[in-house]
């Protein structure tokens, strides 16, 4: 029996230009839903037209900047659909868990949390898409950073 080829949507890949987040029209719905849920998790009152801006400039931009600074360690950075918090997965280049880098991952989590976000940033050592799918819904995840 021939197995049907699994068709899967790619990550919503975000692009950053001068700190601004660029999202394609096709991906806009997924992006806006993530922004709304991320702001909702903070339990702050934000006008509907402000939550995308707040999420972009105060969460995604600093996270992307941090990825660039630590690019030598990071293969990709993904944001799963926010629930009562924003789950972020940082995939590293190594199969081993990197304890030194883990302190930097903890530090960015604390920085974002102290800026008011309900967030959990976790290290996933060299995970392929199949392993990633254990942790995040690939259909709705945002790719904040990809190396190469």
């Amino acid at each position, binding site marked *: 029996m021939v197995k049907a080829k699994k068709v899967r949507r790619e990550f919503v890949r975000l692009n950053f230009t001068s700190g601004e987040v660029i999202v394609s029209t096709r991906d806009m719905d997924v992006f806006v839903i993530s922004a709304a849920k991320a702001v909702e998790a903070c339990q702050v009152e934000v006008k509907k037209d402000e939550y995308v801006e707040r999420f972009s400039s105060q969460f995604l931009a600093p996270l992307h900047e941090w990825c660039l600074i630590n690019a030598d360690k990071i293969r990709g950075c993904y944001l799963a659909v926010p629930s009562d*918090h924003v789950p972020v997965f940082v995939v590293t280049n190594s199969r*081993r*868990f990197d304890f030194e880098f883990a*302190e930097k991952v903890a530090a960015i*989590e*604390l920085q974002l949390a*102290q800026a008011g976000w*309900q967030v959990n940033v976790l290290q996933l050592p060299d995970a392929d898409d199949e392993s990633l799918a*254990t942790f995040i819904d690939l259909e709705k995840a945002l790719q904040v950073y990809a190396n190469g």
Partner: protein
Amino acid sequence: MPTADQHRVKVAGNRKFLATIPLDDYSDWVVVVAFYTALHVVDQLRATLGHGHSRGHTDRRAYIQREHPKIHTHYHLLENGSLLARYESNSDFFARYQPQDITDNLLALRLVSIEEYARTLIAG
């Protein structure tokens, strides 16, 4: 809601259990039990200080981020390890953590630091 003393009893039980798990065969379970020991230490501390009760992992994490940033990194590493231990395959997990990483870092450094920090505040 459990009292501080009930959390203390859970910590003692988890610690006792932790000492019985063969690290070479079940390093994933060592990490999981270490994390849940830390979790009850935090909840014991929270109840002792009159800071209410944790309503789940997100609430507890936010409490640590807000009130106890000194132990945030320690707790974060245990939580990260526990998540990988629970959801990844054994072959993946065992490739990520060597037994010595677990004893030297997650147990001797992270868990012990959280316990010492909480002990000081609870005693104070």
